[in-house]
C-alpha cells in the first residue's frame, strides 16, 4: 500500500445462475483485503468507510493491518454477501478476495 497517500454507487452484482452447490454456499466466507504498493492508505481507509459504513477508526485499523500484516480479514459473510462485497471493493480498485472460512 502506498504511503503517499466512490458514483457512484458500486456496481450491482448481476444475478447469474449459480453453479456452486448449496452446501458450499452455506459455509462461511471471509472477505480479505490484500496489501499492494499502489493503493493509497487514505484511499483504502475511505473505501472501507464507504463500502462497510465503518467509523474512521475501524477503517483505519483494518487499513493498517493490510499495510503491516499484508492482509486484513474484513467480514465473515454468506457466499452471496461476500461476493457482493468483493465486487464493491474491486470496483474501487482494491485487491480483495473471498475465501472459505475454514
Amino acid at each position, binding site marked *: 500500500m*502506498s504511503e*503517499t*497517500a*466512490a*458514483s*457512484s454507487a*458500486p*456496481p*450491482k*452484482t*448481476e444475478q*447469474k*445462475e*449459480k*453453479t*456452486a*452447490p448449496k452446501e*458450499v454456499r452455506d459455509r462461511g466466507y471471509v472477505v480479505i483485503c490484500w496489501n*499492494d*504498493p*499502489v*493503493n*493509497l492508505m*487514505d*484511499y483504502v481507509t*475511505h473505501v472501507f468507510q*464507504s463500502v462497510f459504513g465503518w467509523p474512521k477508526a475501524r477503517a483505519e485499523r483494518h487499513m493498517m493491518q493490510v499495510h503491516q500484516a499484508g492482509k486484513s480479514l474484513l467480514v465473515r459473510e454468506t457466499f452471496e454477501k461476500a*461476493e457482493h462485497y*468483493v*465486487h464493491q471493493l*474491486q*470496483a*474501487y*480498485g482494491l485487491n480483495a*478476495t*473471498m*475465501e*472459505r472460512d475454514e
Partner: protein
Amino acid sequence: MKLIRTLKSASSSGGFAFLMNKQEVDWLLALLKIYPQMDSSCHKLTTTSAAEIKAEQETLEESMAQYRRDHRRKLDKFLASPGRFRLEAPDQYRFALTPEQMEWMLQLLNDVRVGCWVKLGRPELEGVPKRHLTGQAARDMTALELSGYFQMVLLEAFKGPAAAS
C-alpha cells in the same frame, strides 16, 4: 489545485469547489481521457481453486467490464457539460463537484493509477528507477503519479477545508 469551498447543504448545487491552474486542468483531463486502464486481468474472486466458482469469476469480470463501459459513457457526458472548468481569473479555473461526483472521481482516478501500475508489471513503487523508463512505461508511471496527486487532493477535501489548505 486547491479546495476553495465546501458546502454542507444538500440543496446546494455543489459540495466542493476547487481552483486549478491550466496545467492542472490539462493533467486531469489527460488522466480522465485514458480511463479505464484496469481490465479483467485485475479481477480475481478468490485465491484458491476457482473451479467450483467459475461462473462467479466470469460474473465478476463481466460486471467490472460493464461497470467501466458505463462510467466511460458517464464521464464523456460529464466532461461535455459546458462550464465544467470555469475560468474565474487568469490561469484560475473553478471545478465543482458534488460529494457523489467526488466519490466517482476517486474511483476513476484509482482505476487509472492501479491499471497503469499493472501495466508496469506491478512493481514496488519505492525505488523504481524512473529515469530509465521510456515510451509507454514513462507515460504509465506519469499517469500513476499524477492520479495519486489528484486523489490526495480529493481525499484531503473530504476531511475538510482546514486539512485541504
